[in-house]
């Protein structure tokens, strides 16, 4: 119900917008007849009409200056309308599940086009080749290149090239010749199209369109190899298409009689020049971007902009040199992605990523909407049943034949052959799109009499493939049980295994003396690491290159985020003390050690391995806290909490000094700090892991949702004896902290520590005060203690209940010291701070 209302509402908005637009365009139309300059009908008389035209009789406060802003205004409005279409479409998931978004956008385009047609009686807006090729396509291609899964792409490069080059040539030739044959056979009636023009038409229809392919395949989620083959083909066949188009265009201009062997040879040569030249331009720009980002540290704010500008320049440069612009941009993106990501600040990398998506997705939307709008135009509708239907038929059939034939050849050489089902999907995924339409629009009407028929046919083929094949693709994929994309969340283990496995493959190739993919890849990697990285990458960034390190980094980030989310869910820092806290320590020890805890500790540190699996749970410490209701102190405490955080968190975190400054955007990202956070987090993880495994963990039952969550942390096997006892006394430490904070309930940083024992998800950035580093190891805990006590001062009434078992506490403290002395782990130094002494009787003084 709600969605349909929403839908109606937006329709109304559309009608209004379009009404406004058509009014506007009527005005504009009086001045312009040509329509090749902009998305909207551009008025070329904007400048003349301002206030200079009429004599001023009186000072007007407000003036209507529509003509000043017509063109940009229309462009902006159209972008808005197209994106609103997407918004409506995406809000109806049950529709997009069946019909792909691209098809729906085209349908919306029909509707919008119809409205304009109804208002104007002529189509004033359409997708022109200039707009498409220079303003809409580049960002889609750049995005494709920049986010290309490089390894997958280069592994399958051979197959992709075969499909892109031979497949496209085959499509063009077969389509052109067959249509010509049918024409000769008289199936199309009277058409003024010669063989060369058929071939020209064939060449522009041959190319699989990247925009359409991305749009449809993104929703279908087929497996990586299949996707990369279709997608890579759609990107790389541009070189072929451009060459074929130019060559046949030239041939058509020359006329049949002038074509001799020399011209044909030139055509073939031009293919290599265009394709490789375009790639080279792209590579040059890619290197340039990489190099540039090495030095943009001081202008971090506009750093991301370089990628876009240079990417666009690579497109335009290639276009200027009449090379393949798409290839250029793709290779630019492919090459620079690694170095850009490594060199730029993390924020910039994110910005590039999102901005790229915004541009690409946005222009993709506009392309589809305008493909729809362009259809509603009387001029281009020249119907010729034979020509149109045969084209659609041949496009479909020859795609199948081409793919099956080429795959048959490829499969003889492929390590992992493409299966029949894959081939069906690949053939079916041969979507034609805006590139074909754009190229058709570029045809010269003087040379090709039937241009409109060709444009019209191109449009129909686009609709057929995008709408029909788009809709049926998903059911087909499901029906044929095509391997879908794997859920791409690799675990650390998988990453490690992957790495190991790659090295193994290389090694086996080395040993067996075969030169294969792995051999070449390892050689390339060696070269890349040795030379390219050194030149193109900041030295500081090289370390982060390792993918394993990345996963590790991701894990840590996830931890931190989970922690924050968890905290926020419970309402910022307030959750700390609103919970009723019940702490229940239970220690489980081996029965033989159960008599005396201190002794046991000592023994264990002396090297008795606690491997016995029979463990009697012996609750040796049981501290139970009861509810503290502290409503009176919230305000004072909030202040305290902030104060404490200020004192103990990293100082420079998020200190934006001037919110208005355009260039001051510095967030502390000290290398060391990051490193430190990592290490600490890992230690925490390990502690919980080991202690849990030991079974001696003080099982803290705290009624926190979070705690319960954490209790699920698995228990693992510990490594060594030292480690073992070390982990034991770690636990004691915790228990102490816990019990201490148990009765010092108002203690603001309490939740951080209280969640430690379970501590699987914990970012130590938030508990930095718990584990002072070497440098901080000065009596930090003492200072903290002071602070704590000062904190507690306002909440003294809440202190009514004294520590339930101070003796326990003391014993624990002793314990810690005893174990510590024997502990040889060097890690302990920075890991185990002196215990924050439980301060049962806080000093009454309060230095707030």
């Amino acid at each position: 119900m709600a969605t349909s209302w929403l839908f109606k509402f937006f329709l109304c908005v559309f009608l209004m917008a379009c009404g406004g637009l058509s009014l506007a365009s009527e005005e504009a139309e009086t001045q312009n007849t040509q329509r090749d300059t902009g998305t909207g009908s551009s008025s070329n008389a904007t400048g003349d009409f301002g206030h200079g035209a009429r004599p001023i009789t009186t000072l007007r406060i407000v003036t209507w200056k529509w003509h000043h802003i017509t063109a940009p205004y229309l462009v902006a409005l159209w972008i808005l309308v197209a994106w609103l279409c997407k918004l409506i479409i995406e809000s109806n998931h049950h529709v997009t599940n069946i019909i792909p978004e691209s098809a729906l956008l085209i349908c919306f385009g029909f509707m919008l086009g119809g409205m304009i047609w109804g208002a104007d009686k002529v189509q004033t807006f359409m997708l022109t080749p200039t707009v498409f090729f220079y303003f809409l396509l580049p960002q889609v291609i750049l995005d494709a290149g920049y986010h290309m899964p490089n390894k997958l792409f280069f592994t399958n490069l051979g197959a992709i090239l075969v499909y892109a080059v031979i497949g496209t040539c085959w499509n063009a030739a077969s389509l052109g010749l067959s249509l010509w044959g049918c024409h000769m056979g008289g199936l199309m009636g009277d058409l003024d199209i010669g063989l060369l023009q058929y071939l020209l038409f064939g060449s522009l229809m041959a190319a699989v369109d990247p925009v359409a392919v991305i749009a449809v395949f993104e929703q279908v989620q087929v497996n990586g190899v299949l996707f990369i083959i279709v997608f890579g083909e759609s990107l790389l066949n541009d070189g072929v298409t451009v060459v074929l188009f130019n060559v046949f265009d030239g041939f058509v201009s020359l006329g049949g009689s002038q074509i001799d062997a020399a011209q044909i040879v030139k055509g073939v040569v031009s293919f290599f020049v265009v394709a490789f030249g375009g790639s080279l331009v792209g590579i040059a720009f890619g290197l340039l971007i990489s190099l540039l980002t090495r030095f943009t540290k001081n202008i971090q704010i506009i750093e991301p902009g370089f990628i876009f500008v240079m990417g666009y320049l690579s497109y335009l440069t290639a276009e200027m040199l009449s090379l393949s612009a798409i290839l250029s941009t793709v290779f630019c993106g492919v090459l620079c992605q690694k170095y850009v990501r490594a060199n730029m600040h993390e924020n910039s990398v994110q910005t590039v990523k999102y901005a790229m998506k915004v541009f690409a997705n946005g222009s993709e939307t506009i392309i589809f909407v305008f493909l729809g709008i362009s259809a509603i135009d009387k001029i281009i509708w020249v119907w010729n049943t034979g020509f149109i239907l045969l084209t659609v038929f041949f496009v479909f059939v020859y795609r199948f034949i081409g793919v099956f034939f080429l795959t048959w050849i490829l499969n003889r050489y492929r390590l992992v052959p493409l299966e029949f089902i894959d081939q069906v999907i690949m053939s079916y995924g041969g979507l034609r799109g805006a590139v074909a339409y754009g190229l058709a629009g570029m045809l010269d009407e003087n040379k090709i009499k039937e241009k409109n028929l060709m444009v019209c046919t191109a449009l129909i083929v686009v609709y057929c493939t995008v709408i029909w094949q788009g809709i049926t693709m998903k059911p087909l994929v499901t029906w044929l049980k095509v391997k879908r994309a794997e859920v791409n969340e690799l675990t650390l283990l998988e990453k490690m295994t992957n790495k190991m496995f790659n090295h193994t493959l290389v090694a086996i190739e080395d040993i067996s003396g075969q030169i294969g993919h792995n051999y070449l890849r390892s050689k390339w990697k060696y070269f890349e690491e040795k030379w390219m990285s050194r030149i193109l990458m900041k030295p500081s960034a090289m370390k982060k290159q390792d993918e394993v390190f990345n996963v590790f980094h991701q894990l840590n980030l996830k931890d931190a985020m989970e922690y924050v989310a968890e905290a926020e869910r419970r309402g910022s820092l307030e959750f700390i003390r609103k919970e009723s806290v019940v702490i229940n320590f239970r220690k489980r020890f081996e029965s033989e050690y159960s008599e005396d805890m201190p002794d046991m500790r000592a023994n264990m540190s002396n090297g008795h391995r606690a491997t016995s699996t029979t463990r009697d749970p012996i609750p040796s410490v049981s501290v139970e806290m009861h509810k503290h209701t502290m409503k009176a102190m919230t305000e004072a405490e909030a202040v305290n909490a902030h104060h404490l955080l200020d004192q103990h968190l990293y100082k420079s975190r998020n200190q934006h000094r001037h919110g208005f400054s355009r260039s001051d955007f510095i967030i502390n990202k000290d290398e060391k700090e990051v490193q430190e956070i990592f290490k600490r987090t890992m230690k925490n993880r390990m502690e919980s892991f080991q202690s849990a495994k030991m079974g001696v963990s003080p099982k803290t039952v705290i009624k926190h949702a979070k705690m319960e969550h954490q209790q699920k942390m698995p228990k693992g096997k510990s490594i060594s004896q030292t480690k073992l006892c070390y982990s034991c006394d770690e636990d004691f430490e915790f228990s102490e902290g816990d019990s201490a904070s148990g009765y010092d309930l108002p203690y603001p940083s309490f939740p951080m520590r209280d969640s430690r024992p379970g501590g699987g998800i914990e970012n130590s950035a938030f508990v930095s005060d718990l584990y002072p580093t070497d440098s901080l190891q000065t009596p930090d805990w003492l200072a903290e203690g002071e602070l704590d006590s000062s904190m507690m001062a306002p909440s003294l009434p809440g202190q009514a209940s004294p520590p339930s078992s101070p003796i326990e506490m003391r014993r624990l403290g002793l314990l810690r010291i005893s174990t510590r002395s024997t502990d040889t782990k060097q890690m302990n130094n920075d890991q185990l701070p002196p215990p924050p002494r439980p301060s049962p009787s806080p000093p009454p003084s309060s230095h707030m």
Partner: protein
Amino acid sequence: MGALQSLPGRPEYSDLAEKTGFSFEQIGVLHKRFKQLSHNEETLRRDHFNEIHDLAFNPIRTQIIEAFFDRRNFHQDGEGKVQEIGFEEFVVVMSHFRPPSVHMTEEQREKTRREKLRFLFNMHDTDNDGTITLEEYRHVVEELLSRSGTLEKETAKCIADAAMLEVASISVGHMEPDEFYEGITFEHFLKLLDGFEIESRMTIRFLNMDTTTLCK
């Protein structure tokens, strides 16, 4: 089939071909390589492997070389290490990396997968007790990251720890505090790498052509 008979004087190959699934040509090439590596001796020792030039850059060289001398990789229930291997063992180890045939039943695919994963597992499980303990895993990770030069040893350890922790949380899920995570068993290993396409990826193109001269 004609090709098979056209290789007279190699009756020993037919057994090997049957056992490993290599073609005669491939075995021929591998034999040449074997001779090249062993300096025309009948057996290969660890030193011979260490001499391979390209292998020197491989961070997990030791693990791989050990895999060639590990009995578990020759026989179903072998155990322990050997000091030198003959050509047959060499080819059998190599055969773990043979690409799967095009037409395979689901069962065969599963079997290949298990075999290949077993090979990887054995590379981790150095003491042959059926589990990869944290210590063993750490060792591998350290080796693995040792060549990248940029990662510190401490970080490597952290990564190994994190991976192990993750493994524990995935494979066991909730555990009681007195439970014990021994390490990764093979069954866990299989389960963990469930989404990991290995049967088609852990393959090497064994050419019929002799390219050994190109390798140092």
